[in-house]
């Protein structure tokens, strides 16, 4: 659990800053049978990012990366809205959208594991082409839908709680089950930690890698449904734009190494929450809109530095302990003389 310490500290710090600027930040009220409050908002608006980050965590754990999740978000939302606008049932729309997402993810995995293309290139293909595909689905228009059942996914409530939060909890539970109760997590970590040794231990890494990319796309697909449902429209151009970068950031902040191997789902959730809280903080503190991105970049840089053990050693321990002299130094002088 020590790995989660720093993300927790950062999140707590951000929350404290918010309380200072907005004293009512922690208050949660019940209005018209729904939970309301800043914390609830962070969870609700952060839900798509958490989902995408969960999928990204597993991809990164295999030593890969998935740049196409933002495009998958757009495609999934576009297909679902198109279906609903053509009077298909919500269930059909959702199943079709998620089915297509999984297919696209499997394609990514196929390129990486079977064809052997570097993950960053393989998924870059879909990142670029996927936006076009989303445009194609919506015919270049923004499709608006008005279906209360579809609205539930991203904008509705169930048992007083925003439905999106429940959805995230469900996906998180399934992911934890697959990776930690079943053996998927260990095999993923093994493939990411040492691919050749895993092969020699008899692990069929190809299937695992394809599955992981498909899962990441599924998560992105669900996030796409949430985002389009929340605004009741599908925008092929802007839905999920740059979400892949936020997701990668969330994974890294959560303590999973980009080199692959050990991963932490809890850390990723914390990382995604930190990013979402940061966005909220920027609004509540009143940072001018034109400097928002710069401000975010500064905070993220700081977070990454704090997390780096090498950096902490340099800053915090330098004054404390003098460097021990190298024992070889004396002899070396004698030799060179």
């Amino acid at each position, binding site marked *: 659990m020590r790995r989660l310490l720093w993300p927790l500290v950062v999140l707590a710090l951000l929350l404290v800053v918010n309380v200072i600027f907005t004293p009512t930040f922690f208050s949660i009220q019940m209005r018209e049978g729904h939970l309301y409050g800043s914390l609830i908002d962070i969870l609700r608006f952060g839900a798509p990012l958490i989902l995408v980050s969960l999928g990204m965590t597993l991809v990164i754990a295999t030593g890969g990366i998935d740049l196409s999740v933002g495009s998958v978000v757009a495609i999934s939302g576009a297909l679902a809205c198109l279906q609903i606008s053509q009077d298909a049932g919500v269930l059909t729309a959702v199943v079709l959208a998620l089915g297509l997402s999984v297919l696209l993810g499997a394609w990514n995995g196929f390129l990486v594991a079977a064809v052997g293309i570097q993950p960053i290139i393989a998924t870059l293909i879909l990142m670029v082409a996927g936006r076009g595909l989303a445009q194609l689905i919506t015919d270049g228009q923004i499709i608006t839908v008005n279906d209360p059942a579809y609205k539930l996914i991203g904008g509705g409530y169930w048992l007083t709680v925003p439905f999106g939060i429940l959805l995230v909890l469900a996906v998180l539970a399934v992911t934890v089950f697959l990776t930690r109760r079943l053996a998927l997590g260990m*095999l993923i970590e093994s493939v990411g930690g040492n691919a050749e040794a895993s092969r020699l231990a008899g692990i069929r890494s190809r299937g695992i890698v394809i599955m992981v990319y498909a899962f990441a796309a599924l998560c992105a697909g669900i996030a796409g449904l949430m985002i389009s449902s929340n605004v009741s429209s599908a925008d092929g151009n802007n839905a999920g734009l740059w979400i892949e970068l936020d997701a990668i950031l969330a994974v890294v902040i959560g303590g999973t190494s980009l080199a692959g191997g050990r991963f932490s789902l809890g850390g990723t959730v914390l990382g995604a929450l930190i990013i979402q809280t940061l966005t909220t903080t920027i609004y509540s503190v009143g940072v001018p809109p034109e400097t928002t991105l710069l401000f975010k970049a500064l905070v993220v840089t700081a977070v990454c530095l704090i997390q780096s053990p090498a950096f902490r050693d340099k800053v915090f321990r330098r004054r404390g302990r003098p460097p021990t002299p190298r024992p070889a130094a004396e002899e070396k002088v004698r*030799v060179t003389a």
Partner: protein
Amino acid sequence: MTGPAPGAGPVPRERPCPGGAVDREGAVEMAALAPILRMSGIGKQFPGVKALDGVDLRLLPGEVHALMGENGAGKSTLIKVLTGVHPVDAGEIELAGQAVAFGSPLEAQAAGISTVYQEVNLCANLSVAENIFIGREPRRWGRIDWRRMRVRAADLLDRLELDLDVSAPLSTYSLAIQQMVAIARAIDIEARVLILDEPTSSLDAGEVEQLFRVMRALKEQGIAILFVSHFLDQIYEISDRMTILRNGRLVGEHLTSELSQVELVAKMIGQELADLEKLHGEAKVFDRPLVEARGLGRTGAIEPFTLTVHEGEVVGLAGLLGSGRTEIARLLFGADHASTGEIAVGGVPVSLRTPRAAMTHRIAFCSENRKSDGLIPDLTVRENIILALQATRGWTRPVPREQQDELVGRYIKALKINPANPEHLVRDLSGGNQQKVVLARWLILEPRLLILDEPTRGIDVGAKAEIQRLVARLSDGGMAVLFISAELEEVLRLSHRVGVLRDRRLVAQLPNDATLTNDVLLETIASGGPA
């Protein structure tokens, strides 16, 4: 004026002979060939290991000098100390009579000591000329003078008697040519000493001949070449003298023409004939073939061989490093694809295209390279041990935690893995314990054929004896074992039969009876045929 006037008296100018040794060719020859490089009393200590201890080496201009020794004898360390990769702990290095101590390979290069490593460190996508001059491009008006670069590159390659298109990308040429381009790059920097660290390990016979032509041309030009290779034939073909190391110590310096191959191998391995403790029980009859390889081979790795391993039999493989021992193991495990031949398990022909396929026939393989091919450093001891078992079950059927704990606990105890904590990260364990973890991973699968490639390398004596006893016990219990080791003594102790490899060829299979001794094995390794 004080002091002797110039030419007034005889000034003693004779060079003292190094170490008092008088060359048989006579003192005149010796004076003409003062060593360009002299290393004396070199010592190097790594944490817990004395890598070099009082090693001397001298290189004469215009000679090819072979640096010989088994794996871990200190050859690479000596080269690294010489070229400034590591600082020396003791001893002196003299280049052309001047004491030197290089802080980095760059400094060594500037002083005229160039190194070409086994792996070609060049950029295959750049042209031949660019590769030769990368970082030192001839310039005019601050811009690269491409014309002059091409002309100079062609001149340089001419010195090596090579005729290449210098503007073609390096990747269009074979590995041998790439190696020679690396050499061209090295000698352009006014090299006086050229170090070739296993340059021939990935070359075929024709390419080796080509390389040797280049080496002879350089020799003519007075460059001293230090040559490291595991191929004895090549050493005897090209080298003039050799320095032999064993366990970080100097064994001796010899003229190649005065040392037979048998003597060389004996000096490299060391004739420590320990008493042969009987490890196996009573003599057994092996009449149930388990794995039969017929004409199995892989181009460039191992010549086709035929080998049968019976149930309960330990077959040892002996031979120098690079002789094809590991290649046989990898083919039998499906880690590499065979280009010829066939395998049968229990009399049934099978196709071992992947390790997983071999595992379904209950063949297990402990690689010699624990770090890169065995361990998953980030996972715990428990996870590393159950990895292969879990792989056979797929991800949907996890090994139940109680069963994991039981299996892991049993093997931690049986193999005395220390620390005995299953949740310890395997990266923090010592080499011997890591080896035991990999062994445990395969033993819980209860294989019928266990392939052990250098299972005792780099681990302490106690762990070594434990692993040897374990192998004997397993084979007495009916398991077939293919045991690969560089230590002949160990192979002789454990094996019922010994296969001898030389230059990527299985040259002999000898029953381990009273007539098979260390000397017979050495003779077979050196001569390439049954004694």
